[in-house]
């Protein structure tokens, strides 16, 4: 793992992608910092960070697009997969190297509250927690981008699809307002989600029996539940999917000074899920 981590990190800083990402993120945040904190005199650095969140949409796809698609295109994955090292270590090595690239600007951000302090009052606890949460959210985005990169051989497709997914996540709160709230739409939503899950299971296992059985049992169970107690499905979609509003966990710290621990756990779980999915995708490709 250490070998891959070191190689990846070196590669990011040889190829200018690393420095450019650090520079863009710091410069953009610097502009917001000047406008909000220095000019307007607002003492919270966290607020500045929430403005910089949109930069992730542009830089994370560029950071993650090459991670697996390029290896596959250049056939260098043959070296990694025939070396005496497990796939999970390859994936973790790559993930940590990308996280390290993202960590560098976040470490620089740690200086900004000190500058505010030099000018007067600063709120260190809020600011540093928000920097930590900002970094963690970036890692969630990295894990998603890495997974999408492992699905394709083209870096361009990897970048664009990552951008699309991140954009949807960024606008999640707004999209959720359009979710229908009636019980029947909740039922339909549950069945659609179930079908997506089952089709993924079928893709991975190629087993009609298991995936078919899960689908049938799931559909029957939801319909029976709907008939017995339809109120359970009221507003279900909005409630469930609303929990996936990742940015609000970060902005919650900024706006209300509330740290949502369950939200941070959700961040970590999503990272774990996408790392797992990346490993599975690579494993699966060996067998197809």
């Amino acid at each position, binding site marked *: 793992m250490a070998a891959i981590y*070191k190689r990846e990190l070196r*590669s990011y800083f*040889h190829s200018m992608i690393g420095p450019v990402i650090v520079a863009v993120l710091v410069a953009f945040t610097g502009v917001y910092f000047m406008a909000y904190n220095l000019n307007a005199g607002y003492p919270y650095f966290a607020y500045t960070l929430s403005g910089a969140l949109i930069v992730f949409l542009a830089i994370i796809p560029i950071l993650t697009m090459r991670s697996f698609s390029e290896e596959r295109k*250049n056939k260098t*994955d043959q070296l990694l997969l*025939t070396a*005496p*090292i497990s796939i999970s270590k390859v994936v973790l090595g790559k993930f940590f190297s990308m996280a390290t690239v993202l960590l560098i600007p976040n470490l620089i951000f740690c200086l900004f509250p000190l500058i505010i302090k030099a000018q007067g009052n600063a709120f260190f606890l809020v600011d540093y927690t928000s920097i930590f949460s900002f970094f963690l959210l970036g890692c969630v985005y990295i894990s998603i981008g890495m997974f999408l990169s492992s699905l394709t051989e083209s870096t361009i497709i990897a970048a664009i699809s990552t951008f699309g997914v991140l954009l949807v996540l960024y606008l999640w709160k707004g999209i959720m307002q359009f979710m229908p709230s009636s019980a029947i739409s909740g039922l339909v939503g549950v069945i659609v989600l179930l079908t997506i899950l089952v089709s993924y299971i079928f893709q991975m296992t190629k087993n009609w029996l298991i995936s078919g059985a899960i689908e049938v049992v799931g559909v029957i169970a939801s319909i029976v539940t709907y008939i017995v107690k339809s109120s359970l499905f009221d507003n279900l979609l909005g409630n469930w999917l609303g929990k996936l509003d990742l940015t609000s966990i970060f902005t919650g710290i900024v706006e209300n000074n509330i740290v949502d621990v369950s939200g941070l756990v959700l961040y970590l779980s999503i990272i774990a899920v996408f790392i797992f999915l990346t490993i599975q995708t690579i494993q699966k490709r060996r*067998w197809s």
Partner: protein
Amino acid sequence: MIEVKNLVKKYGNHLAVDHLSFQIEKGQIYGFLGPNGAGKSTTMNIMTGYLGATEGQVMINGHDILKEPEEAKKCIGYLPELPPLYTDMKVEEYLQFVAELKKIDKKKREEEMEQVMKLAKLMDVRGRLIRNLSKGYRQRVGLAQAMIGFPEIIILDEPTVGLDPKQIIEIRELIRTLAKDHTVILSSHILAEVREVCDYIMIIAKGKLVASDTPQNLEHLMEGSEEIELTAKTTPENVHSILKKVNHLGEVELKETEEGTYAKVEVLDDADVKDDIFFAFAEAKCVLSSLQTKQVSLEDVFLELTGEEQSLEETTRNDRELIEESDRANRAADESAEEDESVEVDLEREEQRTTDECASEPGETEQVQIKQVSEEEKEDGSDL
């Protein structure tokens, strides 16, 4: 050492490897031979753990490649068809990375890297970016990558494809050096190469193992009736009447050429009739400009075993076309050699080997060597 049992690999409905089984013993050079798309690379990819098999088992030194992948992979150095190089790294950096990846002891790392770079003759380019290296050097970096850590088994997938004759000779020498204390498996669609380097040949066609033996035994496999070829400075009718007087001769095939008459004679009962033919022509005061036994070559075995649809006539016609083509190629090579001294030296070396080979295998014409050159020039074996 390596045990492959009942290996099957399916790509959708296409059967790439079809119930392949073989064993590989220590300390020899094995050659996988087969036309393009025969399943050589797929088999190697499965053996090294890059691909999973649909069915079957691969044991490396007693470790199953699927159940104990790390133990099994430690015993293998693999050079795939396309060397897996990170072009944004320097040669030295790259080898350092591979050494680390293969979990070589930190203390030994430097020493082994030096050794490997010396063997692969990479000392001059150690500080250069791989991106800027030529194809030949990239291949050598790939080879160095496979050698690092000196694993017991070294698997090379078409190691000489796309190299010039000088580099091919160098790589072959390197493979021979490696074979002194490693087991080497290499794949190729070039017969001459496999014959040149390998102790043991496995011929694969359409995912099946069709033959596996030493090169000599494979040639014996095809030996049935012997044939004699001769050219005489006289008319076909004369040749026919002279040959009639010699015993143990079967069918005679005659053809008039510029120099006289070419005849192909079948020999019956394994008799040694060369002397008799010579004296018969001497008695008739007829000049015999050539007389030789035609031997079955590895090419014939290969074509027989791999080309089911091709009729024999078709293959011989292809052979002739090939020879003509390679003659042209040879002439071109000679011309370019005159321009470049260093290449000339190599061609001389090649010629030296050609004559050596002819000496060790009497009767076999230069066809093999010529063919080899032509195949190397074309860089693919679509003709087979």
